[in-house]
């Protein structure tokens, strides 16, 4: 016989049936069920298969520690593998499937592994599968991988939303059991901002399944009254279905709220899960205790269940575990289960109490066997009997359910996330965490406190103390202290003499002998044993198995559990979905979008955009009839060189620099001189890192005696701003200099080409003739008859007569339109960053393709820009090192194919003609390349050993990745208009 629903009792709503399926079979549960309780109500005890031996497994617990009842729930993109049936709140339309079985959970061929188990002991795979060497990847590993793993994840994207929030409170209470409720009540009454978080869908913890009275009241009444009072307090927030998963520095707690995991119809306006980062001034950890399994043969057969879980299913969901239950206990809680089973009219075949002395005053019907042990549980897919050793003799008792309790372990996971080490307490027979750490106090069963009454008092008292420390002088404990009468039994780590496999880590199939083997082979350290046997590494993270493993290792090594110690508790307390951790930052929203003020102008002119950092920049502007990007880019380049073009350069970093020491400051952050830059002039500057490498380049203009305007590259805008602020605030706080980022203030428009002056003059009120506004001029200008003030710079990246005009961003589109209008008779065209790139390569101008963090000014032909006269600038001292002055440094050259019909790509390496390809013979690499329509050839910039001395040398441009080996010649990096005639035109 198997489990079933009792006709009355429980906290379920019998008027609200919920339909669901398991392995395709329709079933019905009730509101108030978990998936686990609903499966039990339907008589389904075998729900999964174990990892290695594919053993049939049932439901062992009623909570987060469940190692066996893992199922796959949901469909399509909502498929969730490895879901604990014990934590799933049942909903109508839920679909669940068993895992790690083929063809079915009832008949699983993988179970053959169980027969091979003598050969599959701990670490067997380290000792074999080595021959022949090639077989590992081809044969052995694929088989092992297919057999391993649990559920199958979907490849479909998740259709649902997630989000992340911050919350702030004076007191965070973790766990809404007796001690947590008492803590929250105490803090709430004191007026503190309280957050009470609990993983269950109903707050209450152990009160939900308690049948005994608490302080003369029924547990249910106490719970209802407390929750009602808390609900009325505006300063208390109760987060149900919320698991606090980690304790982080700064007393920030991570929690995950299951917002819509209890429904088949998801409201798209709300997330399915929500991460809370809770900044708490103080926290009370009231996470309770976990019941320890007992380690005896067949302790994994479906029908064997933790005593507390059995009690919880019985009292919360009115589930009978079977017709005939044996209780195997090393603790009082087995008797509580027996009491409630009998009260529900169920048969308890026997209470097998491992203790000789601590046996309770039992007044129920079942016989009690003191100092007895269940040696083996028998059965295949369901329990049929147990073998009990009592008084030196073995007796067989027929039973279809077995409740076991090995005692209780405080749940101290979170309290150990920040380095605290658990300490073994002989008195409590448990590992305890430090009860008070900065910002966190452990209360109730998590601190090893026993009865409900004492937990209430402990939670209340500790909350009052924590609040007093925060200045809530009125904090008064909501419950008064009572004496703790709970007894602690000597732990029973294992039963000797079992015939069957006695499991320690259920999910990973680590059994007693595996741990023995680990000790014998020198892996007896608790961490080594874990890693060698995989004990504690399953999805439950050793919640049930770790403590027994420690006890067993201690016995084997003949030391105390204190000497064995624990493995490290690490976040997360329970597994956490990627989706929750990601929140809303997914797909197109992975990162924010930054748009140029000319974005829509570019769009209406047909731009193709490219992601550049967070920006979208216009790459090229295809026109009707153009079929490839190259056609468009070639046209744009030729047109700019012939007529004029307009390009959006708004994404360049722009920084306003103020202060009476601004010039001195710039003189120190650039390697070239800035002190005497005249007002109205722009200058190209190189900014080095302290190690001498070029950090960024750009132009800086002096707009006033104490006002400069710096431009940076798009990619380094934020970094340069941080760097300037560092230099000003941390290095030279004595300088009077301030910065304002004005990147977004200005739409910046490059107008380039021989007709650019003509075009711009139509908008600019002042005279911009060469005489009035020569190369490197920079000034504020009046536009369109005084309608607007902008800034005009005569600078050029294209090598053409060119300007950059900055106008307030909101007018950018209007001005760009006006320039296009004015330029129409002169053949103006918009051009994108691709054409800009071609023109800058033609001119030998460098970008971050060359300024790659490993070049110094002289590598790029900028040796003369490095001021020798200045006493100090960032990077000066380190430039003198031997490696930075060496002859053979890679330095800038041009490169072009000997046959213009051939081509090469950026990233190709340079080899001397005829040299054997090898790293030793590597001469450098192509840093930038493009097709130059002006030269009718591919051209490139390259960084090559002894570069400038090798103009004219024939080389091979080597791109083995593309089987492209191009004969080429090294040359000057300036391919076009080397005399700069056009620039000054």
């Amino acid at each position, binding site marked *: 016989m198997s489990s079933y629903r009792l006709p009355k009792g429980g906290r379920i709503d019998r008027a609200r049936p919920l339909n669901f399926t398991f392995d395709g079979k329709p079933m019905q549960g009730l509101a108030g069920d978990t998936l686990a309780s609903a499966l039990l109500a339907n008589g389904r005890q075998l729900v999964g298969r174990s990892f290695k031996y594919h053993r049939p497994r049932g439901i062992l617990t009623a909570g987060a520690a469940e190692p066996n009842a893992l199922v796959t729930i949901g469909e399509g993109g909502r498929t969730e593998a490895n879901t604990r049936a014990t934590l799933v709140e049942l909903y109508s339309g839920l679909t669940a499937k068993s895992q790690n079985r083929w063809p079915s959970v009832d008949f699983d061929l993988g179970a053959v592994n169980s027969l091979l188990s003598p050969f599959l002991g701990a670490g067997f795979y380290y000792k074999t599968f080595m021959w022949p060497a090639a077989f590992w990847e081809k044969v052995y590993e694929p088989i092992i991988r297919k057999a391993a793993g649990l559920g199958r994840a979907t490849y479909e994207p998740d259709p649902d939303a997630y989000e992340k929030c911050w919350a702030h409170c004076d007191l965070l209470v973790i766990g809404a059991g007796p001690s947590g409720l008492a803590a929250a009540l105490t803090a709430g009454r004191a007026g503190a901002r309280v957050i009470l978080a609990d993983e269950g869908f109903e707050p209450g913890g152990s009160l939900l399944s308690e049948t005994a009275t608490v302080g003369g009241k029924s547990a249910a009444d106490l719970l209802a009254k407390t929750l009602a009072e808390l609900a009325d307090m505006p300063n208390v927030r109760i987060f149900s279905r919320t698991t606090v998963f980690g304790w982080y520095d700064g007393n920030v707690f991570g929690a995950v709220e299951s917002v819509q995991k209890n429904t088949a119809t998801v409201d798209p306006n709300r997330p399915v899960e929500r991460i809370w980062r809770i900044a708490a001034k103080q926290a009370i950890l009231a996470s309770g205790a976990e019941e320890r399994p007992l380690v005896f043969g067949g302790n994994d057969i479906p029908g064997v269940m933790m005593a507390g879980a059995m009690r919880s299913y019985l009292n919360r969901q009115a589930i009978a575990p079977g017709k005939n239950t044996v209780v195997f206990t090393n603790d009082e809680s087995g008797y509580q289960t027996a009491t409630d089973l009998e009260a529900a009219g169920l048969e308890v075949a026997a209470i097998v109490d491992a203790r000789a002395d601590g046996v309770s005053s039992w007044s129920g019907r079942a016989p009690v066997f003191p100092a007895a042990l269940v040696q083996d549980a028998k059965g295949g897919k369901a329990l049929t009997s147990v073998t009990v050793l009592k008084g030196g003799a073995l007796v067989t008792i027929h039973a279809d359910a077995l409740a076991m309790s090995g005692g209780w372990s405080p749940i101290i996971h979170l309290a150990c996330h920040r380095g605290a080490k658990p300490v073994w307490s002989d008195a409590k027979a448990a590992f305890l965490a430090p009860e008070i750490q900065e910002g966190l106090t452990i209360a109730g069963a998590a601190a090893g406190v026993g009865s409900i009454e004492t937990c209430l008092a402990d939670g209340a008292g500790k909350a009052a103390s924590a609040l007093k420390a925060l200045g809530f002088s009125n904090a008064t404990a909501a419950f008064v202290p009572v004496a703790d009468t709970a007894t602690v039994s000597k732990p029973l780590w294992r039963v000797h003499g079992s015939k069957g496999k006695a499991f320690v880590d259920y999910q990973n199939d680590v059994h007693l002998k595996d741990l023995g083997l680990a000790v014998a082979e020198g892996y007896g350290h608790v961490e080594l044993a874990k890693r060698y046997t995989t004990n504690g590494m399953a999805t439950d993270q050793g919640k049930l198995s770790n403590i027994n493993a420690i006890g067993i290792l201690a016995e084997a090594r003949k030391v105390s559990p204190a000497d064995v110690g624990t493995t490290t508790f690490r976040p997360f307390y329970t597994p956490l979905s990627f989706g929750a951790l*990601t929140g809303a930052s997914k797909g197109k929203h992975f990162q924010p979008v930054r748009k140029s003020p000319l974005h829509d102008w570019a769009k209406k002119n047909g731009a193709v955009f490219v992601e550049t950092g967070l920006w979208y920049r216009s790459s090229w502007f295809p026109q009707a009839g153009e079929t490839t990007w190259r056609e468009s880019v070639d046209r744009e380049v030729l047109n700019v060189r012939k007529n004029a073009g307009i390009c959006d350069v708004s994404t360049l970093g722009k920084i306003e620099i103020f202060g009476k020491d601004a010039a001195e400051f710039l003189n120190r952050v650039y390697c070239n001189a800035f002190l005497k830059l005249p007002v109205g002039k722009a200058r190209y500057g190189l900014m080095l890192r302290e190690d001498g490498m070029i950090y960024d380049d750009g132009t800086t203009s002096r707009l006033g005696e104490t006002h400069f305007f710096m431009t940076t590259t798009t990619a380094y805008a934020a970094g340069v701003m941080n760097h300037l602020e560092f230099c000003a605030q941390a290095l030279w706080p004595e300088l009077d200099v301030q910065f304002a980022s004005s990147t977004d203030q200005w739409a910046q428009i490059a107008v380039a080409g021989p007709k650019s002056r003509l075009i711009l003059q139509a908008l600019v009120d002042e005279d911009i003739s060469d005489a009035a506004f020569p190369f490197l001029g920079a000034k504020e200008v009046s536009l369109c008859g005084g309608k607007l003030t902008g800034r005009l710079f005569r600078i050029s990246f294209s090598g053409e007569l060119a300007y950059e005009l900055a106008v307030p961003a909101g007018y950018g589109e209007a001005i760009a339109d006006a320039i296009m209008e004015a330029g129409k008779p002169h053949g103006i065209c918009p051009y994108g960053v691709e054409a800009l790139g071609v023109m800058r390569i033609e001119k030998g101008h460098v970008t971050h393709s060359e300024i790659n963090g490993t070049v110094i000014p002289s590598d790029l032909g900028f040796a003369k820009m490095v001021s020798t006269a200045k006493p100090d600038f960032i990077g000066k001292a380190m430039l003198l090192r031997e490696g930075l002055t060496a002859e053979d440094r890679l330095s800038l050259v041009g490169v072009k194919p000997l046959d213009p019909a051939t081509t090469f790509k950026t990233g190709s390496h340079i080899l001397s003609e005829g040299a054997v390809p090898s790293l030793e013979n590597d001469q450098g690499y192509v840093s930038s390349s493009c097709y130059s329509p002006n030269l009718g050839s591919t051209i490139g910039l390259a960084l090559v050993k002894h570069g400038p001395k090798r103009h004219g040398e024939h080389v091979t441009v080597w791109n083995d990745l593309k089987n492209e080996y191009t004969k080429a010649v090294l040359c000057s990096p300036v391919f076009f208009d080397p005399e700069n005639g056009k620039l000054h035109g």
Partner: protein
Amino acid sequence: MRYSAFSVFLNALRGNKDWKPAWRSPVPKNHYDVVIIGGGGHGLATAYYLAKEFGVTNVAVLEKGYIGSGNVGRNTTIIRSNYLLQGNNPFYELSMKLWEGLEQDFNFNAMVSQRGVLNLYHSDAQRDAYTRRGNAMRLHGVDADLLDRNTVRQMLPFLDFDNARFPIQGALMQKRGGTVRHDAVAWGYARGADSRGVDIIQNCEVTGIRRENGRVVGVETSQGFIGCGKLALAAAGNSTVVADMVDMKLPIESHVLQAFVSEGLKPFIDNVVTFGAGHFYVSQSDKGGLVFGGDIDGYNSYAQRGNLATVEHVAEAGVAMIPALSRVRVLRSWGGVMDMSMDGSPIIDRTPIDNLYLNAGWCYGGFKATPASGFCYAHLIAKNEPHETGRAFRLDRFARGRMIDEKGVGSQPNLH
């Protein structure tokens, strides 16, 4: 006892009662020719190669905890030799070659799995950088392939090709890259070294370094004084702590790097894949867990634990790369302490102090280097002469301006 399918079979028949410890637990001797501080991957590999290749067997490895308790047991198990620069590229390729024969060499199955490493690129600039890198690899005979978007899509159709903020354009692939069962590397080297006479001494914390006439003569430890002819540091994230004992400042900062594993899944992803538009990389262990990580947390730390913001950052990048990860649950995160050097490349060198050798600065890439690091370090210690392949990893390269800076970010370790 030699490990084989046959030995497993025989022992099983005898009830698995005859297995012997994989390594001894000796009482330290008074003096060793070489004492290695650090029983991690590099320290154990050094001892192994000292004994096996250079005949130096009077060696002790001192480990303050249990062997493999440092970074060899806390990494994401990836091996690869896809390096750009001359100093690094041949070294990591030597390491790859050693990985390829390792298990047969030390008779321990470390599950070296050459399943391919793909570095995704999302822009022309990244493609160009990978072209340069892939060609540098090819120049040294290392396998490298530049895959286009369609090829990557055929291999990994579940990456986000359709809705991504930074669309995938292609990948640089090293087919010979892959993963290794990390703990097994420490155990295999330990067993191999032990069987050749090396003493592995656990729970032995070095508390001081004794010098006489400027020369190192031994170490003070929690198990007493141990004399040595040569002292070799292989303390990874704790290198500074040990160097401080001889007042030697290092170009190193210790940083925390987090790694993660998901719940066990049936085969989901075959290769190692790194995201190019954020900090994320992933592979799947033979047990089924997705093993993944991102960037270092960015601040000095000796605590083996990290920060929630970094966890979120990694998850965001993960879902950006593989949207289906959304419903996969992360089981555990942990942290390791990285010895971040000032150029992102390691140091294997003598020190200004006689008889003191340094192996450090592995940043977050020490695991894949383990065999070559052990081999080159053993060479240096045994012959007092750097191995040709590790010659560039000099301690004085910063002062000389000979940095090996793959990322080009200079002397700021949290950017490497």
